[in-house]
């Protein structure tokens, strides 16, 4: 039976979610073979996120049945207050299943999604939000420019060409180094990359003094939750490979797919090539007089004693 009043009823205010939820999906089922460097990649991803993100945000990590070592790392980060919401899934529900969870449950108005093999650079979120604000029809903004098939951005082009206040430019705006960095991370050879680079161009839009490239990718993007929620549920029969439907549906629904002009995130893949030192910023925890062990112990004793006396 209930004795006394639940003290939770005396909590007048609970912390409100930040406007932005940064969400990551992790899946590292073992630390060998393809995933041999998986934990190091994850640490690099999280470290760079904490280091490079100055805007307030809540971090949500959905772990899709990773191995014990990865769970331990995530639980420790959650304990330190560096992950606000940690979801541990005992089964791999697929990337689509994880997206279904995140896109519906994430408490922020804006969701900045990322795979867990991404390196974040300073300014990635600021620039993504700036583009979302300048292009209200934007559905997703990836924080690095890239060249993707036109089939996924026909709506973006169509919209841009109809807007008198949008400047549309076509040309080779992406530097070779920036282009190469991304395609190499996908396992493409440099020779193949050179052929592609020479045969394709970029489209740049400018509105209200803010420029963005036409294109986006589902490995990392920032999007309004209200738009993402329109596309759930995603198919979740397979762990991966069905998420391209987000790109297709977003384009079909007429939303813009854009990227920043600068490479503010980097796809790491499953191995660190030496250029990315693991960033590990110091934990930030609240410091409070009531957290001092002796004071806390004494107060807990008093608290407990009052309860016993009051409800005897």
């Amino acid at each position, binding site marked *: *039976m*209930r*004795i*006394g009043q639940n*003290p*939770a*009823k*005396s*909590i007048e205010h*609970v*912390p*409100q*979610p930040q406007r932005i939820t940064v969400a990551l999906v992790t899946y590292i089922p073992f630390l060998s*073979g*393809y995933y041999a460097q998986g934990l190091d990649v994850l640490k690099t991803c999280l470290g760079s996120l904490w280091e490079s993100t100055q805007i307030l945000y809540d971090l949500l990590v959905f772990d899709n049945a990773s191995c014990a070592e990865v769970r331990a790392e995530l*639980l420790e980060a*959650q*304990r330190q207050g560096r992950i606000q*919401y*940690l*979801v*541990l*899934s*005992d*089964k*791999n*529900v*697929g990337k*689509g299943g994880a997206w*279904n*969870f995140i896109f*519906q*449950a994430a*408490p922020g108005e804006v969701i900045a999604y990322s795979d867990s093999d991404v390196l974040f650079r300073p300014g990635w979120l600021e620039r993504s939000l700036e583009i979302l604000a300048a292009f209200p029809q934007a559905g997703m903004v990836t924080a690095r420019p890239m060249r993707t098939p036109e089939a996924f951005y026909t709506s973006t082009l169509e919209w841009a060409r109809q807007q008198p206040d949008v400047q549309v430019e076509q040309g080779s705006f992406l530097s070779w180094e920036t282009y190469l960095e991304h395609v*190499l991370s*996908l*396992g493409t050879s440099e020779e193949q990359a050179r052929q592609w680079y020479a045969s394709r161009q970029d489209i740049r839009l400018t509105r209200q003094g803010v420029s963005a490239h036409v294109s986006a990718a589902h490995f990392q993007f920032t999007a309004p939750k209200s738009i993402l929620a329109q596309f759930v*549920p995603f198919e*979740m*029969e*397979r*762990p*991966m490979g069905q998420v391209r439907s987000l790109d297709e549906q977003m384009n079909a629904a007429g939303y813009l797919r854009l990227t920043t002009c600068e490479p503010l995130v980097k*796809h*790491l*893949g*499953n*191995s660190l*090539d030496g250029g990315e030192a693991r960033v590990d910023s110091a934990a930030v925890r609240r410091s409070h007089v*009531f957290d001092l062990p002796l004071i*806390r112990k004494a107060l*807990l004793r008093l*608290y*407990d004693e*009052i*309860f*016993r*006396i*009051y409800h*005897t």
Partner: protein
Amino acid sequence: MRTGANPAKAGLPAYKPQRLGIATIVYIPSQEGYFQDSLEILRFTLASLREATSQSYDLLVFDNGSCAEAIAELRSFYEQKQIDWLVLSQHNIGKAGAWNWIFAAMPNELIGYADSDVLFRPGWLEASLQVLEAFPQAGMVSAQPNFYDVMDGQGVAHLKLRGDERYTFGDYWPAREIIDEYCLGIGATDEIASPFYQKPLPAITRQEQGVRAVIGASHMQFIIPRAVARQVVPLPASMGLRRAETMSLDYKIDELGCLHLSTQNPYVFHMGNTLSPRLLKEVDQVIEAGSIRPTAAKYSVARQSGWRRMAVRLVRHPRFNRQFVRLYNFLFQALHSEK
């Protein structure tokens, strides 16, 4: 860079959720005071759920900023594969805030919710499903007759069925033991309990199936169809545990034209925050031998020292009672505040 192909793309199947998903919210900020038995009670909730549920289900536990010991216990359950989804929230985002997660995200067709101090009895699911099947317009079905109408007579969804020949309305007089048990669960004083014995509960019967249900449902435990759950979020969530926020669930469900219903017999029991010999006896019956069992010695009644008896008299004095409550709440806030 990517080296090799991701094995996850090899076409392996992803997990397909069960038809039924059950969620509970845990908030045990310390193991003192009000919460001194909460961890043990949580164990009983999960164990009774496991023992008394006849169908496969996915279990989601939402931890709302509990203490390290409670999280360690949940981790242990998770590692033992007794929890399918464990959500750890750094902060207490309130009961309604946690509901927002649960109702928005659980992929199951039917979403069962229970506070983490509910004891499940065999048959709870069958009885709930029987009501859900007989009343497809049900938005919330509890496995215990509902005695307290949080909407205070404002609910209108069931009124649409008046005049429909398939349904009849009537009174249900629960047996005295059912009322006794309900009052025990909520720790009701005689004054609060008295009206429950004096008036019947409103009931509705689906003629064709011969299924009768009590009109009204409880926030403590219920099943909500996913299709309804998705339409009620987001609920306002700015406080820890206030009826003003949690009852917005009821209003939204009613506005959708969905019924609040409950079973005539109590298939769940509100354990609250203390373990009594009566409860322990029942826990023993529900939870099969060999799983989590209570240790009677731990819960024997301690003898009171003289100073404590004096202190008890003092705090019950109207003059000091309020100050004591304020001090208690202040300490709670100081020890567990998020700021």
